């Protein structure tokens, strides 16, 4: 507790700093590996589509406590297969949760479905009210998928517009959207690799992740914007300010992620252990994976990417160069004074001076190589910003003749 708070303060003050922005190649490559695995899983293993997408009939039987065992499963499987219906000849029967048995068949028509339902009821020895049934036609999944895709597209466009309008910065939109795609791909990959069933509830879960992932990203970006707002007055580069923002919001990000994950975890537990299958599990699982990925991506992907994009801007690069120079000047103000050596030309021959950089006509912004060279002089001209005295009436010195005589 105390340590966590200490860490919180240290992170806030910048005493302890995890270099999220600087080590971006590391984070990018970790994400790239995960995403590649996800895509690989998706293309080689494929998604296990639920009957809502494939079409079919699913029965769920509430067994008396303790009777949802393998024997009952076998019994029901045989009974269903013996109905002689072709579509029900190879039913998938398994236990689900503590006392539910789930049976899936190929699409049946209404009468056949009733017949199978009857058979199951007899085989399992339960009442009519203990069986739930859903019959789904083969075309239904298409409609669900179509709508989900439209929803995804509309949402993405709206979010890009929203973030652009809120932050006035399309680069933030790009960062947020890349993080979003990252989360969704990872979630889908988890589904592909684990073989969990994909149902319309899963699709909803994935669409909801979009919101959550952005929630995190917005919180982090808000702090980034705040920290970089007055960059010219500090000795920080854009990257440093952004990194500080991530560090400062780290405790908050961890807390919000934990708090968001706790109820979803409870939901997942109820869905998997108590009910075994169904909308609850599908939703909670997608949310759980997506939220975890969302917390990661807003810190490790969105912000470094934003910094990278921002560093392409000439003004930011100039600002960064200034900040570095100022920082260096702050640490050692005589760093640029040349050390006297033998045969050093001392005198008023400027072109042979040992500090040629001082007169380097090249603009600072375009410098390349291993960082800006430090000159002991202010690079370029200082950006004019609003200062605290901007609105105050400034003292003026009038000519003597105009000053009032006392």
């Amino acid at each position, binding site marked *: *507790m*105390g340590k966590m708070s200490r860490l*919180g*303060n240290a992170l806030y*003050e910048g005493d302890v700093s995890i270099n999220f922005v600087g080590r971006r190649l590391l984070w990018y490559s970790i994400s790239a590996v995960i995403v590649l695995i996800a895509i690989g899983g998706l293309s080689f293993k494929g998604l296990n589509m639920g009957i*809502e997408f494939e079409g079919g009939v699913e029965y769920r039987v*509430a067994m008396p406590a303790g009777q949802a065992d393998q024997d009952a499963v076998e019994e029901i499987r045989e009974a269903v297969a013996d109905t002689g219906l072709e579509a029900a000849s190879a039913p998938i029967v398994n236990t689900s949760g503590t006392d*539910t048995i789930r049976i899936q068949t190929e699409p049946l028509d*209404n009468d056949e*479905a*009733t017949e199978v339902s009857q058979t199951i009821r007899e085989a399992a020895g339960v*009442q*009519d*009210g*203990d*069986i739930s*049934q*859903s*019959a*789904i*036609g083969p075309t*239904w999944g298409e*409609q*669900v998928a179509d*709508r989900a895709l439209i*929803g995804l597209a509309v*949402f993405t466009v709206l979010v890009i517009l*929203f973030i652009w309008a809120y932050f006035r910065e399309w680069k933030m939109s790009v960062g947020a959207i890349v993080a979003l795609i990252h989360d969704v791909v990872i979630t889908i990959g988890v589904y592909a690799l684990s073989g969990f069933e994909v149902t*319309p*509830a899963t699709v*909803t879960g994935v*669409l909801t992740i979009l*919101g959550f992932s*952005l*929630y995190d990203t917005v*919180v982090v970006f*808000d702090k980034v914007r*705040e920290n970089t707002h007055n960059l010219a007055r500090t000795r920080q580069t854009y990257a440093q300010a952004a990194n500080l923002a991530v560090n*400062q919001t780290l*405790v*908050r990000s961890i*807390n*919000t992620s934990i*708090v*968001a*994950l*706790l*109820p*979803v*975890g*409870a*939901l997942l*537990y*109820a*869905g998997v252990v108590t*009910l075994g299958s169904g*909308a*609850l599990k599908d*939703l*909670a699982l997608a949310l759980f994976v997506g939220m975890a990925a969302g917390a990661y991506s807003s810190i490790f992907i969105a912000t470094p990417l934003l910094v990278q994009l921002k560093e392409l801007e000439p003004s930011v690069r100039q600002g960064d160069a200034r900040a570095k120079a100022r920082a260096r000047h702050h640490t050692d103000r005589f760093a640029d004074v040349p050390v006297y050596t033998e045969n050093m030309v001392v005198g008023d021959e400027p072109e042979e001076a040992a500090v040629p950089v001082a007169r380097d006509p090249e603009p600072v912004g375009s410098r390349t190589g291993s960082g800006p060279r430090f000159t002991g002089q202010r690079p370029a001209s200082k950006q004019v910003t609003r200062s605290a005295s901007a609105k105050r009436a400034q003292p003026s010195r009038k000519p003597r003749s105009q000053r009032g005589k006392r």
Partner: protein
Amino acid sequence: MARNTSRPGRTLIAFGLLIAALYGGVALSGDWTPKLGLDLQGGTRITLEASTETGDEVTDEKLQEAAAIIESRVNGSGVTEAEVTTQGDRNIIVEIPGENRKELVDTVKQTAQLRFRLVAATAPGSAQAQPSAAATPTPSGNASPSGNASPDASPAADPAVEPSSASRNRALSGGLVAADETAPSDRPSKKKSATPSPAASESPSVLPEPPVASEGAPVDQPLQWMRNPGNPWIQAFNNYTCPPPGEAGLVKDIANKPIITCDEAGTTKYLLSAAMIQGTQLDDASAGIPQSQVNWVVNLSFDSTARQTFAEVTRQLAGTGEQFAIVLDGTVISAPTVISPIAGGNAQITGDFDQEEALSLANSLKYGALPLTFTAPVVTEEGPSLAADQLSAGIWAGAFGMALVLVYCMFYYRGLGTVVVASLGVAAAITYAVVLAMSQSIGFTLTLPGIAGLIVAVGITADSFIVYFERIRDEMRDGKSMRVAVETGWVQARRTCLAADAVSLLAAVVLYIFAIGVVKGFAFALGISTIIDVVVFFLFTKPMVSWLAKFPFFNTGHKLSGLDAENLGVDYLPGQPRTAPAGGNA
């Protein structure tokens, strides 16, 4: 904000009153449990997907009309609480709570059939219809169901069998006139004079003329058949009794066979010829009041294929007082007489309609004009015991998830954790009231995904408090005192929270619009919880923190307040006397 600063108590009291008012409103209806969805109480849900035979687009209007017709069909089969709603651009959801009613699938997905038939005979639908007939001023002494249809009755002379002697729910009968201004010769003038036509109560019903032979005319010649249905049909007609309204009474409506059926109220039975014109041949139907008239009429226009037939039929029927019937799904929705022959294909049904009747008739006609074909891609049936399991699992998950969040916040934020507890409690109370209010007003049903949405929203709601608290702590680390930090932190946290909640809400709205199936409930729950989060955050959490900031327990950094030096990780609290030794305790 300034007001909040100075008077947090006032805001809190006002907010308390708001909640009290909300609960007062809910208490008025006296219903303290929300409407549960089928997955929580058991029942049958049939999802229908509409398509048109012609490949035309399924318009919203048509879908609504179809839903209304399906609803009356379902309710007609004895189901009381069925709900029929439209979803997306082509789905109709039929929800039947309670026991297994899967056999309804065929009933609801049947295509609506609108047909124009000729009326061979009418009679009161059942013996029970007699008392109401006696109550009307029309003489009805000799109205015996068997006698009316007997061949020896003289046409147009027996007033006892008027369809209007029934209750107000009678089939909308009336006169039919041409509405085509370009109709030949004297029609315009004639129409004008004829339009304040004999209203339903004045139009006598038509009885068949004495049959030439007991066999009757062939059924594929409706005009002849109408006047001479033959004994077997008359016998069947005489023996037929209308089922009481609301009972299963769907008549098999086969286009090329005569049928015996009733009007919607079941008070009049009709012997009808084979179909003359199909609903698909109807171009358009609308209700309106013609210029210089006062009564509502229904305008019809037939397409070119039906124009000829209709002209012929109306020419034959005009002036005779004989009726033809408009039959939707085997039920007579209107049986007008023909006042004048109509050649142009545009007709007007007049009568003493009120606006509602006229609109409903026009809608039925329009729906019949473009019959939608339905498939039932999803039929689910929830067993009540599994549904009960789902409900308890949902409630358990909600309680457990909320408890976890509270424990975590109390542990991490100590004294400030009470704010989280109180705020979440208030948010839960408001959410419950809103769910109750909405299930009463707009028929919101709480489904399992809905409960999931509410649970997930606990996280979102707690998130905004965390954002705020972390802000306060950050401000204090910057060297502000607690009371200042509460206000300056608020300004920052407010903005962040609004932006984040806006994204959340956006996601919920997009989901709600584009998701189909039960998951809509999830999006809806998520959306309202997000809005409630903002309300609670602004009107409760902030004033409460401002109010708590007045207590020394919080503003001097008590060890359990969550805002003490150790908790913030600083050496001493800003604005407080330094208790730490001069060397610091780092």
